[in-house]
């Protein structure tokens, strides 16, 4: 029986070439969690399986029982928890008790499920390697721990560049739980090494998700523009501003400020577009998956929220979408981002990028002092920056001239072959195990 690789949390369709490359690298079957890309992977010639199908109802029931038992054991320690989560006369436990125990129960199910999947693949076919899109979230950490016990190598393939949070936390990337991490570029490589990851565990591969941009020449971009205009009811001849919205990360005390700033940034973008109405500028809001796909996400009310703010700001030509990311980036006359990987993708496509700082400006955010990007210091500068990018050909030329160096900083060898390099790392570690 052919050996297999478990692939976790790499379900962006842009990762399809990576799945193909991994399967080819060792002539492996792939087990996918989640199973989102199974059909496209099979259509591309990959033998792909739904990893959840390995667990029958009896196994699922056992896992639920184990999780419930764990919660009961923790509940028996409540006085200790109440003491732990208090400060002086203030006690935090009563408010957090419910969500805390629910989170633990959910994590117990997810971690046990992941471990059981790895064990089942190892028994059935032989597990060659585990490839993790996230290794800091619960299921990713469980996969790394179980694979280590089984003697199977783990490789982390990040979704984007390594951020530089003001307060490093291991669950935000300050620790790599997998055996090796594939750095998208030198910026990330330096970050991983600086935070203590062994240099030989950091492989400079590039980001597989960005491979597709290597094939996007001017003609392909023009086709993207036609396609996205037709799909979203836009005028391909009128200027197109794409705004990459973001979600509120609740894992930091700065989130209360972010929440205010996210709305303020959007309103500044709208004000900039409104001022350019004579140019028939069209705005497309590209929703972040972290906002669109949250558990209680309600698409209509989210769309209504963005549309309503635009209407009250006097902007009628606005489209809000969670799709067409590649086409929109490729087609944009200006791309407005919030300290985001979307900006790097814009640079890879040769698009003018305006970066809006959501974090305090002294923070070492992406694009600080980056000559290839219009890096703003204050939200109020958005309107003027948009006008400059759309009207000033000399500025666009300067940005374009500086883009290759910026790309090299964030993206290793943007030649469309990062998928192959990541697959080679997986194969090398699997051989050595």
């Amino acid at each position, binding site marked *: 029986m052919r050996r297999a690789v478990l692939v976790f949390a790499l379900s962006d369709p842009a990762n399809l070439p990576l799945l193909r490359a991994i399967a080819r690298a060792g002539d492996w079957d792939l087990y996918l969690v989640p199973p989102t890309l199974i059909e496209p992977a099979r259509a591309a010639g990959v033998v792909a399986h739904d990893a959840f199908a390995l667990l029958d109802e009896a196994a699922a029931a056992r896992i639920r029982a184990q999780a419930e038992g764990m919660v009961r054991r923790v509940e028996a320690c409540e006085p200790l928890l109440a003491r732990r989560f208090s400060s002086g006369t203030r006690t*935090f436990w009563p*408010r957090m008790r419910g969500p805390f125990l629910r989170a633990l129960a959910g994590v117990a199910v997810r971690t046990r499920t992941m471990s059981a999947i790895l064990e089942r693949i190892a028994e059935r076919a032989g597990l060659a390697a585990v490839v993790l899109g996230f290794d800091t979230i619960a299921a990713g950490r469980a996969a790394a721990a179980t694979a280590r016990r089984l003697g199977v190598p783990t490789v982390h393939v990040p979704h984007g560049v390594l951020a530089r949070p003001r*307060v490093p936390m291991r669950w935000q990337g300050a620790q790599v739980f997998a055996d090796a991490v594939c750095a998208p570029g030198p910026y990330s490589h330096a970050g991983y090494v600086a935070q203590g990851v062994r240099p030989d565990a950091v492989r400079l591969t590039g980001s597989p998700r960005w491979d597709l941009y290597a094939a996007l020449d001017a003609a392909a971009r023009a086709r993207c523009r036609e396609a996205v205009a037709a799909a979203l009811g836009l005028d391909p001849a009128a200027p197109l501003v794409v705004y990459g919205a973001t979600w509120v990360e609740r894992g930091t005390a700065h989130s209360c400020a972010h929440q205010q700033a996210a709305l303020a940034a959007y309103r500044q973008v709208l004000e900039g577009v409104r001022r350019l109405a004579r140019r028939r500028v069209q705005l497309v809001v590209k929703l972040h998956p972290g906002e669109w796909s949250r558990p209680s996400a309600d698409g209509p009310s989210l769309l209504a929220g963005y549309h309503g703010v635009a209407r009250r700001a006097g902007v009628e030509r606005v489209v809000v979408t969670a799709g067409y990311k590649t086409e929109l980036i490729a087609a944009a006359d200006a791309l407005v981002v919030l300290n985001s990987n979307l900006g790097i993708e814009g640079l890879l496509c040769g698009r003018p990028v305006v970066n809006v700082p959501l974090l305090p400006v002294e923070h070492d955010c992406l694009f600080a002092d980056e000559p290839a990007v219009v890096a703003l210091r204050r939200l109020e500068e958005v309107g003027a920056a948009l006008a400059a990018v759309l009207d000033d050909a000399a500025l666009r030329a300067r940005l374009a001239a500086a883009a290759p160096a910026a790309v090299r900083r964030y993206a290793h060898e943007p030649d469309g072959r990062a998928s192959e390099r990541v697959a080679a790392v997986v194969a090398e570690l699997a051989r050595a195990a």
Partner: protein
Amino acid sequence: MEAAGEVEARVARAGALARAGALGAAEAEYRAALALDPASPAARAGLGVVLLGARRPHEAEAEFRHAWQAGATVGLSGLALCLRERGALDDARALLETALARGLDDPLARDLLAELPPAAPALGEAIALEGLGFSYADETLALRCRRCGRAWEEPAASPMCDLALACAGCGARARAVPEAFAAAAARVRPPLAVGDADALDRVTADLVAAWHGDPALAAALDLGDVNVGAAAEQELMAVVLDAILAAAPGGA
């Protein structure tokens, strides 16, 4: 001229097919017309009608929007229907009111506007936001009805949502648009100064990273290859932060 004639012929054929109920064939004809002239307002509007008839309002919306922006009146009512379909009642209302106020004479648009329910009052009038909670996944709004005094909680996926709120006690309604939500949130959870937020993050992160190492708790949390408390650090950070912020003076 030849292409224009073909577009016109295809649009006419598509219209006939649609009227005969052959929606699939009509869609194909409209798309063939749009392949020849992507800007054709008649083909866009016709395709929108077919898509709406096929219960595909999200796709229809883009076609109607295109048609309306290109000057096809039929695009307006189609677009309003799509907006109503996806619950964007305020957008539908604003679209129709603006067009009619500008002098558009369209009985269908007037009828549609009359059918829309009246706008709900703003957040803070009948229903007030009194607190805000969050977890790794969602926001929780603590609400109180000013009419009957009932208090309850509702989840919200994003502060950018336009939420329709209703009191189950007396039926009072409110709408929380993002601007109002942000203003209320700033009151109940004011942004922290950068240094204060950093300090709080350090304290909370230390707490989240350490609690599960206590021997009694570690034994309770042991499940196979992981300490569940350690594996849950990312999710618990938000939960613990929420509790600490709520306990701060003025926190809610």
